[in-house]
């Protein structure tokens, strides 16, 4: 029987992720999204195929997810990132019941049961509680974004940040620095502020352990620690926390194909193929 490969394309607001899998991930690509989703989707898919050493026609099924999922013309199905993240996390960490995904411009909480999403909350309209909050405040403080997490851990006394508005919070921390508060304390305070916003959002889900963290936020050690302090216990981070959405998407594709085979129903696929799309770039 011909080997089956599944592709997951996760177009987030800041990063685009593609994975190709059979039983496990054989290739993955992460790139900045930018404004041209359509062209980008083709490009990263081609890159992933090159890495996997496969032609597009060998891919049995493609699932697109994320904010830009409607801009993937060669995807056979679009599924929301909520369902896909749940699937991706359950694949790596079956004991997880609650997922917290912290992206560049949004954050979400997902409740899992039997490996599927059963409830969710999202914040995609306010920067507070997303990667954006740290990005803007880091810039305001003159600190590199990738250093923020480590610096937070060196704080002696995290300072309280009252403002949730990113712009106001930036003003607040800059003036605190001017008053002589230590930089690490201010940065720790910012991490606590995000953790507080996220904790408040996911509170609506009635959090159950184990809790997993995904998205860019999961790579920020300061944020992980701040959330753990809020929760009162450790959180799990899956291997490749940025790829859980794309992996979940590919796995959803695998399930769809399997179900169609078992039931004998025809598989509905996208009409436009990858090679066609390049004609329009």
């Amino acid at each position, binding site marked *: 029987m011909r080997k089956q490969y599944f592709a997951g394309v996760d177009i987030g607001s800041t990063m685009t992720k593609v994975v190709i899998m059979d039983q496990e991930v054989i290739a993955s690509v992460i790139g900045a999204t930018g404004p041209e989703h359509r062209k980008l989707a083709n490009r990263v898919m081609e890159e992933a195929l090159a890495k996997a050493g496969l032609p597009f026609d060998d891919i049995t099924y493609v699932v697109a997810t994320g904010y830009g999922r409607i801009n993937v013309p060669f995807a056979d199905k679009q599924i929301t990132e909520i369902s896909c993240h749940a699937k991706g996390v359950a694949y790596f960490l079956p004991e997880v019941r609650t997922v917290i995904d912290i992206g560049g411009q949004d954050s979400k909480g997902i409740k899992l049961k039997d490996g599927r999403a059963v409830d969710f909350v999202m914040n995609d309209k306010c920067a507070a509680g997303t990667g954006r909050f740290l990005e803007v405040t880091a810039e305001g403080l003159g600190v590199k974004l990738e250093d923020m997490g480590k610096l937070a851990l060196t704080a002696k006394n995290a300072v309280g940040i*009252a*403002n*949730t*508005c990113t712009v*106001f919070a930036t*003003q607040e921390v800059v*003036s605190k620095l001017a008053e002589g508060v230590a930089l690490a304390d201010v940065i720790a305070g910012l991490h606590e502020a995000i953790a*507080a916003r996220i*904790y*408040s*959002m996911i*509170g*609506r889900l009635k959090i159950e352990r184990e809790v997993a963290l995904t998205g860019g936020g999961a790579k920020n050690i300061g944020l992980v620690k701040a959330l753990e302090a809020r929760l009162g216990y450790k959180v799990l981070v899956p291997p490749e926390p940025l790829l859980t959405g794309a992996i979940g998407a590919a796995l959803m594709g695998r399930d769809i194909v399997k179900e169609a085979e078992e039931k004998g129903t025809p598989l509905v696929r996208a009409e436009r193929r990858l090679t066609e799309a390049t004609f329009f770039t």
Partner: protein
Amino acid sequence: MTEEKKPEERKKRRTATEAASKIGPMVKAAIGGTVQAREEGKPLAYSFICCCYDEIIRAMDVIPVWTENYAGVCGAKRDAQRFLERAEAENFSRSLCTYALCGLGFDAWREELGEMPPEAPWGGQARPDMMLGSGQMLCDPRNKWYQAAQQYMPDVPVYDVGLPWPPYEDDYDYREVQDYYVKYIVAELKGLVQFLEKHTGRKMDWDHLSELVDLTDRTWNLIWETYELRRAVPSVMGTGDAMNTMVPMVFMMATQEAYDFYQELNDELKHKIANKEGEIPDEKYRLIWGGGLPSWFALSDFNYFNSKGAVFPVEVTYRMIEATYNFDMDLSKVTDPLEHIAWRWVKFWTYWYDRARKRPGSHPDVERLIKYIEDYKIDGIVMHEAFSCRSWHVGLIWQLNMLKKVYKDIPSLILESDIVDISSYNEADTKARIDAFIDTLEAVKSR
């Protein structure tokens, strides 16, 4: 309410009067009293201010737990966020009244724990035996908040008192309808008495109630006379103080303690006036706080105004009384206590209607502003738009527009924040706006 010292060493807020500085401890004692009363098994009722039932509950020795006050205390102590966040976790929108969110978050937490949340401000909000809301034009939370709280306390009954007042309309005069408004309010208050009798097992002492109604009238008159003293130049007491001195008016009405407090304040103000003791040494601008509840966590902003030479001799907020002898009816002739309360209520809310009829295109709320501007010699008007409260903070823009249209162009400022949710407050921005406003006042003055 004075703020507690915080690690950042916040300065204690300065009040102009001795009387105002006594309020913090009074409130703390009252809240502590409710917690103790809970332990002693005395009947406690969640209560709202301005619901006509002060005399009724006091006459029956039912102890009020003023939930708006408790939220204000949490706000002033800058410890409301965790309760707001808990309410949000319960699926209440953060755009709702933040008094209610604070209270609901607190109740959810307290009921879950079976005891007060850790380090609850001033001992916490005591679990009630009943909850007394109201249905009226003032505010929706008054008839939705306690109903929502019941999901955490399903055994606690709720009674909503209907308390409307005639709107100001062009197609009829309020006197054409006031009789049936009063009839309705009396029926509703009767229902409240029955409810209280049922749930306390006590009977209303109607004579005692009449005494408290009379005491309330006298207290209203005393407050009015006392606040009218603030017309003095220089100003002897500002809105910053008034946000403290309102406590007996709205949380202790129908008690001798409240009356005595205002007598003390009255004496103090007379003394200051006699000695020309203004609240600040160099008074330059006299302002009216024309609308909106204050940000309880930022009452020190009044001191900031003071530092720029600005004083607030008068405010609309929490001036929930008028002198009963100024009403167009002789209230003393109404001997039935419930009817008396109802008539007082209707006359209070329609007080400025006749004045509005005399000025084309005017409106009672605007007339009130005009009278205060003239009597208190006001240079400018400040209003506060609190995002979570549609009761007091809607119609401010329009009132200012109307004031300028029918009266005169007067410098105005609208501050934006909230009553309890500090995350909406930007101190730098607020001070910048105040500075700009002071510049405007100075420019107008020197014309």
